[in-house]
């Protein structure tokens, strides 16, 4: 308990580690968590340090893991936090991990590319189907006008003296050509306006909205679209209309003129859509299976990659000795932990299989050592509260243990309500009892996380609030009369 009232005694030590054993020693020290290393290579640029390439490889592995995680997130697969702490892999295991990640990434990219192509196809077929459905209505009125006209024209042709090919030209001159397409709804007004301006009002456009939103293959967003039917006369207008459609990214589809052909096409399109749907669902299944298999190990991989990266970052702080035989490191350790640090170093050298023991050398220095307050999960909240006002100097009195009582008490003096205090205590108690479960959840709300970190603080505050509410005789704002009055009239 002596160390709770002031910060720990710190020693500045110099470590001499053999180059082969350095990795494992740092890994053991990292698991212990008692050493704060100093940056000896302060003047070196970040890319001139010794282990820069390894750090880059770790960054590349992290990028692949991030990619996998976003893909899983897209599919809605949850990554489970098993809570276990895997060991640090050896440097040679890094190559295996890199190969695994690489393989997963290429496989996923391939599957994605295939799915994109299939989705694009599906989108085109769906749009074509919608066109054929919606334009039915337009053409009925159009054909209705033309039907008797056409019959008349064909009779005229039979009876005419003009040779057939010329009369065909005449037919074409009076005939309106049309283009059918699909455009997204938000682009429709500027498109219509530009069409009007560019063609000087000589084209006729009919639109109809598609109710269900269609899925864009690249981004995956659902977009609302409209079916267009543009009627024009002459070849020049046709090219102009095509250019404008291309500019506004409206997809044009060939739409046959007669009703029968449209019916046949519609049947064909529906059949192809059904086939595509089965293929698509199979692709999705395959992708899902790959991701689910990867998601089981994702959390472990993250921890392993982070550990490797941290070790190499720490190794970058060390100085390589002139004879290239050992690495020199400087760090602060708390005096009581000297034993455990030496044990950890010995474990590290044993794991790497070298015989030279690491040397820990105490340095005497005039520098001000850092302040280290040993806390557990209960006292950490109070220590953080005190540190927010300012970290105590080395070996200065630590106000935190007194804060455990005084802070909740002062809070309760101001709060002082039995009923509301009970609610607060119950909330804090729930957080404390479900600690493990809540900590395992990754996506906690930021505000809730603030309360969660201070759960013990809230618990103490709640208990004191109940006590003070009892003293103030106040429950949910209403006065409580339990003990009767303590007022005594003393004069006779």
């Amino acid at each position, binding site marked *: 308990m002596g160390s709770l009232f002031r910060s720990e005694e710190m020693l500045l030590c110099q470590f001499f580690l053999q180059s082969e054993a350095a990795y494992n020693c740092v890994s053991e020290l990292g698991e212990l968590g008692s050493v704060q290393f100093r940056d000896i290579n302060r003047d070196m640029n970040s890319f001139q340090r010794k282990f820069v390439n390894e750090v880059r490889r770790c960054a590349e592995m992290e990028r692949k893991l991030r990619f996998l995680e976003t893909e899983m997130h897209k599919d809605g697969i949850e990554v489970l936090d098993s809570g276990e702490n895997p060991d640090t892999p050896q440097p040679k295991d890094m190559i295996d991990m890199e190969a695994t990640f690489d393989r997963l990434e290429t496989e996923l990219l391939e599957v994605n590319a295939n799915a994109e192509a299939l989705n694009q196809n599906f989108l085109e077929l769906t749009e074509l189907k919608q066109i054929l459905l919606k334009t039915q209505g337009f053409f009925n009125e159009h054909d209705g006008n033309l039907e008797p006209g056409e019959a008349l024209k064909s009779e005229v042709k039979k009876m005419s003296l003009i040779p057939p090919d010329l009369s065909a030209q005449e037919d074409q001159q009076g005939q309106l050509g049309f283009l059918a397409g699909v455009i997204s709804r938000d682009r429709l007004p500027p498109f219509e306006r530009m069409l009007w301006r*560019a063609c000087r009002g000589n084209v006729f456009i009919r639109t109809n909205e598609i109710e269900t939103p269609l899925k864009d293959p690249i981004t995956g967003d659902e977009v609302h679209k409209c079916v267009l039917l543009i009627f024009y006369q002459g070849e020049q207008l046709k090219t102009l209309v095509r250019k404008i459609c291309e500019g506004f990214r409206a997809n044009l589809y060939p739409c046959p003129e007669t009703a029968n052909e449209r019916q046949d096409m519609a049947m064909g399109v529906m059949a192809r859509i059904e086939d595509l749907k089965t293929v698509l669902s199979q692709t999705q299944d395959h992708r899902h299976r790959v991701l689910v298999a990867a998601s089981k190990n994702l959390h472990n991989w993250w921890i392993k990659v982070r550990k490797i990266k941290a070790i190499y970052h720490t190794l970058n702080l060390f100085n390589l000795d002139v004879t290239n035989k050992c690495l020199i490191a400087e760090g602060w350790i708390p005096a009581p932990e000297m034993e455990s640090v030496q044990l950890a170093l010995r474990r590290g050298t044993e794991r790497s299989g070298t015989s030279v023991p690491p040397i820990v050398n105490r340095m005497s220095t005039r520098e001000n050592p850092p302040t280290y307050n040993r806390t557990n999960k209960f006292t950490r909240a109070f220590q953080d509260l005190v540190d927010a006002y300012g970290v105590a100097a080395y070996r200065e009195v630590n106000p935190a243990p007194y804060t455990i009582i005084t802070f909740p008490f002062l809070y309760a003096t101001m709060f002082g309500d039995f009923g509301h205090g009970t609610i607060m205590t119950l909330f804090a108690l729930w957080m404390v009892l479900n600690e493990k479960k809540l900590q395992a959840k990754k996506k906690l709300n930021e505000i809730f996380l603030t309360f969660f970190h201070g759960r013990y603080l809230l618990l103490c505050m709640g208990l004191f609030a109940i006590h003070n509410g009892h003293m103030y005789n106040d429950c949910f704002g209403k006065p409580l009369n339990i003990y009767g009055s303590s007022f005594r009239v003393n004069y006779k």
Partner: protein
Amino acid sequence: MVLMTEYQFNIDSGYLEGLVRGFKNGILTRADYLNLVQCETLEDLKLHLQSTDYGNFLANEPGSLAVATIDDKLREKLVIEFQHMRHMSYEPLSTFLDFITYSYMIDNIILLITGTLHQRPISELIPKCHPLGSFEQMEAIHVASTPAELYNAVLVDTPLAPFFVDCISEKDLDEMNIEIIRNTLYKAFLEAFYKFCEDLGGATADTMCKILAFEADRRAFIITINSFGTELTKDDRAKLYPRCGLLYPDGLAMLARADDYEQVKSVAGYYSEYSVLFEGAGNNPGEKTLEDKFFEHEVELNMLAFMQQFHYGIFYSYLRLKEQECRNIVWIAECVAQKHKAKIDNYIPIM
């Protein structure tokens, strides 16, 4: 004048001013540039940029790094910042920020028309356009073959319509005409922007008018120097000079009559700020080029804008400074990638 008092500025634009000043503090310093210059590969460059305000912007790029990727990502970050500011702004700051985007729109239009002239498909040209200058009708620009059509079909609905008044003609769009259109559009835009800032008054007018006047004069000088030896007549040239700078009206008249570089330099001699820039500028190795000197002066003016508070000039200045920084980083990246470090120090230091 009353609307722009310091008391009322923070109500609408206080958050954005704080944001821009925070961004400005993250601009790379000389120390950063010294570190960047020492890089041997593009990966080193990426590693060093991670410790600056840019952070992990290149972290998700697969494969080996290319200078074009770095350029794209730098620009993307700037675009996101600018669009956030535009979305959070009130009038008149919104109009001010819109004015800034018009210059990018002009560049995009000219890029698309030039590309169409060289028979490039529109899908290849669209990714090259600057995102800040995109507007709805942009992709359908290739339907126009004369400026009149361009105006009637495409530009009349965009905010650039009033600037196009001087450019409408029935001639076909070809190389020379396109440059003239670009400069005429830019002249109309600059004069409109200058008038807008002047009307805003206060510190905005102070800083922006100075910066825009320099921009106008710089364009006048560059147009003159670039037109020597081309078919551009002196009258046509005179029509392209923006009139909102210090050179108007006498300097512009003299420039219109200039025939070679020495005459241009003598015109600059009448104005103390510009004579300093022309001195010592040349194309010999070891000397700074005139363009570099102009860039340096622009950086100076933009940094001065941050010395005053409660005005809109800092938004414009921040954008320009960040663009200069992007140009610097891309220059250094090119030198590093090609392993040709002779001219690597030709960047313009900002802070």
